[in-house]
């Protein structure tokens, strides 16, 4: 645990040292190049902002109106039949839509059931093998103005489903 945290603390400082050191070695004009690159990044983020506003407003509507709760309530009996822990249904669903909302629900489960309960362990593993589909897809596709996304959503959905089922399987196996 200590080593893990130490390693993750060291990643960023080391990245700086290596890149800038390597730059000097190759006689790159490091500061000038940095400023130019930063400007590119600046423009990119400003370019995403409209997408983000549109998306977050839509998700806000769904959240506040209770639609997201409704959908997960609707899904939970179905999941129960399939042997999926129903307490984890809202989180599973939210994980694919909104990262911050999912984090809130995760902490809720930790608080109510304990981080070391079956449920706590399962959602921890599940969270680390899934990704926020909606946000990722919109930001990446909208920044290049691609509207016909073909099989991207289907593929992402299958990948996340595999991650969720694998998490359930491995939690039952290990704990």
């Amino acid at each position, binding site marked *: *645990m200590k080593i*893990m945290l130490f390693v993750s603390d060291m990643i*960023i400082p080391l*990245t700086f040292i*290596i*890149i*800038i050191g390597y*730059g000097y070695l*190759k006689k*790159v004009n490091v500061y000038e190049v*940095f400023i*130019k*690159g*930063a400007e*590119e*990044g600046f423009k*990119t*983020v400003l370019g995403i*902002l409209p997408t983000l506003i549109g998306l977050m*407003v*839509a*998700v*806000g*509507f*769904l959240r*506040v*109106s*209770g639609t997201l709760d409704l959908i997960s309530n609707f899904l939970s009996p179905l999941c129960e039949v399939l042997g999926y822990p129903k307490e984890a249904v809202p989180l599973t669903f939210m994980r694919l839509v909104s990262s911050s909302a999912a984090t809130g629900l*995760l902490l809720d489960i*930790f608080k109510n059931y*304990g*981080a*070391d309960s079956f449920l706590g362990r399962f959602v921890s*593993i599940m*969270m*680390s*093998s*899934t990704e926020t*589909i909606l946000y*990722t*897809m919109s930001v*990446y*596709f909208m*920044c*290049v103005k*691609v*509207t016909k*996304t*073909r*099989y*991207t959503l289907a*593929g*992402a959905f299958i*990948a*996340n489903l*595999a*991650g969720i089922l*694998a*998490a359930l399987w*491995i939690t039952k196996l290990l704990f």
Partner: protein
Amino acid sequence: MLNFIWGAMIFLGVLVAVFTGKIPDLTGAALGSAQDAVNLCVKMLGIISMWTGLMSIAEKAGLIGALSEKMSPLLGFLFPDLPRKSKAVKYIATNFIANLLGIGWAATPAGIMAMQEMQKLNPKKDTATRSMCMFLIINMSSLQIVSVNIVAYRAEYLSRNPSEIIGPGLVTTLISTIVAVIFTKIFEKADAK
């Protein structure tokens, strides 16, 4: 696709709010969410600009080229349409590495630049290419080796062994990514017909 989903989300939200009696809260949700988006962007502005700045040094010094060279057999298998030495491949390599290390805020700018480079090679500008689909599906299959934030949350909630989920998490991440690649390859074949 997104054109349809976005409108549907808003309509659905309003419709449900009529039944749940949450109509008065919708105005707040709209204004608040728009502000949240700007706040998020302002936070990202600094971090992403810093990172793209650092990355352009790495790029100029030839560091990224060397890294993507090492990943070249794998990237060649995943993205047969992209020229080996193209900028797109370099940015994809950077994005994957940042994702593996769990530096999400570093992965996003590289990913966006990769998309922009792939778009330059795209003959039909409104339609995703095979490479774009593969790239995004892998991205959304989760690549992160260690979920440091989850471990931190577990520690916060007094888990006896917060890091016990790292091993299983690694296995499940691997499974979801392999499934992602297999299915995308199948989709590619089916779509080409």
